[in-house]
């Protein structure tokens, strides 16, 4: 479709995007408010950001969240990529239906149920709750998202490249690391980022599976939000938004450049 934006289309776009972005924008603006009252504008100030530096509890929580996120996203990416390979490359193995179900169910499973069931497992096997259990829980629910992202890439690529490598005598491992992985790399990286942000974001599953001494940032934010809206929380949220937005935009730009190169490489490899 081309250049046929009617007035209706423009209104729909403006309304849709305002709806998506205005609340976030207001939240960011009010984090720079000098007044403690969140709804009264009293001039520009960075006082709430400076206050954050002195809030040891919040910084601790941020550190826990970051570690859980990095570790769980790494493991989830490995397991999720394996699951994607299994589902898209190995046809009908025994138990495939069960695996497909187990990969896709967590995507739509309400978080309270995932959280509750994992907690009951940890209690049943008598595992001390804390950092480790949150990480295990996050690996479990984020790996399925990685699988979906990587699988869609695996389904869309030219398999003859893999077959050629195998026919020329490459072992499966060499084929994977020299041919498959470089080709699906952007999807694997996107999967890692998705897993990382989901972990960063999770309140419900972490609340169920945590124990004493392991409070994550969303749990901290949640407990303060319940007491009311405060400019400090706005400031924390603004920082998180800035980090994630920068990451996503940089990743998109890198991916775009990679995509152009990948298509060229694939065409050259196919001898065209």
């Amino acid at each position, binding site marked *: 479709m081309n250049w046929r934006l009617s007035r209706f289309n423009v209104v729909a776009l403006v309304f849709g995007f305002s709806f998506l972005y205005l609340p976030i924008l207001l939240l960011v603006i009010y984090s720079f408010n000098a007044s403690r009252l969140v709804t009264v504008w009293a001039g520009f100030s960075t006082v709430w950001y400076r206050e954050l530096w002195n809030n040891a509890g919040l910084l601790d929580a941020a550190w826990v969240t970051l570690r859980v996120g990095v570790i769980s996203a790494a493991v989830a990416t490995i397991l999720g990529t*394996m699951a994607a390979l299994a589902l898209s490359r190995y046809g009908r193995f025994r138990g495939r239906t069960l695996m497909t179900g187990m990969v896709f169910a967590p995507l739509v499973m309400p978080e309270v149920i995932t959280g509750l069931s994992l907690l*009951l497992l940890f209690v049943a096997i008598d595992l001390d709750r804390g950092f480790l259990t949150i990480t295990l829980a996050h690996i479990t629910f984020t790996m399925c998202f990685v699988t979906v992202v990587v699988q869609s890439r695996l389904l869309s690529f030219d398999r003859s490249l893999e*077959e050629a490598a195998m026919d020329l005598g490459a072992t499966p491992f060499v084929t994977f690391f020299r041919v498959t992985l470089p080709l699906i790399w952007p999807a694997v990286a996107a999967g890692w980022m998705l897993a990382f942000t989901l972990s960063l974001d999770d309140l419900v599953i972490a609340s169920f599976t945590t124990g004493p001494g392991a409070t994550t940032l969303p749990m901290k934010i949640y407990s303060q939000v*319940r007491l009311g809206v405060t400019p400090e929380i706005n400031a924390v949220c603004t920082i998180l938004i800035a980090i994630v937005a920068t990451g996503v935009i940089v990743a998109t730009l890198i991916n775009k450049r990679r995509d152009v190169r990948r298509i060229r490489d694939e065409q050259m490899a196919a001898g065209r």
Partner: protein
Amino acid sequence: MAEDVGTRNAAAGSGDPEVLSSRRTRMKFRGRAVIIPPYVWLLAFFLLPFLIVFKISLSEVVVAMPPYRPTFGDPSEWWGALRQLTIDNYLWIASDELYINSYVESLWIAGISTVITLLIAYPLAYGMARAPAGLRPTLLMLVILPFWTSFLIRVYAWIGILKPEGLLNQLLIAIGLIDEPLLIINTHWAIFIGITYSYLPFMTLPIYASLDRMDHSLIEAAADLGCPPLKAFWTITLPLSLPGVVAGCFLVFIPAVGEFVIPDLLGGSRTLMIGKTVWLEFFTNRDWPVASAVAVVLVAILVLPIVIFQRYQARAGG
């Protein structure tokens, strides 16, 4: 170019049997190495926990740690423990209006929110699909970007807007539309807004994808034959975008039913959605068996739409 690929694949398919069989053995070997770790992980951390929830939903609550009975600790007492399992928790849920109301309320709140989301997402996706090709990737990224920012933060942002002394009421009073602040927060409306806002990308993206795939020459042909634009939309565009609409509705409805954060932060204490009921039962009442039974019933309710959705996706994909 396409023919070229076709012939090469055909050659590989009918190729030297020896090469093929050795490739197959190697694939098989790699297959096990790749399948087993995620498989075992999901069995241990997804399926097994589920069975444990089911088992605890058949247990009795006791004041102990863990707070339920029986436990299957000693294998020699398994038979006795097995006989202690009861369906009392389910009878309790069925007899108490609180739980039934929670389920009903969750389903209809999720349903209405899905409709509102569709009404906002469709025009948005339609506008995106008609935008100049150069602009579309940027618009697409703008729809996806909020999805990456924290869910909790996005819900929190609405508290400041919807409060009685919040920004929306200030604005409406300032422009003279209302005299008294509207009470939006802690009502169903706040939940509808919260769900619509949080799940908008899930609805917009599949609809956009199906509109983007559409062959625009169909609309041109209809116009050339004298079909008015609105009729062309109704008879051509809408039916062709239906797979996207259906996918979007499932992606919003299913998770919205079990939503916890939105009803908790925006809905106040009077709205009970089932996700919140599980949470309260577990954290406030500390009744793990009943919380488990509520969760099992919720899964049973959601299994049907999930299975329909997967079938539908598989058919649309193949």
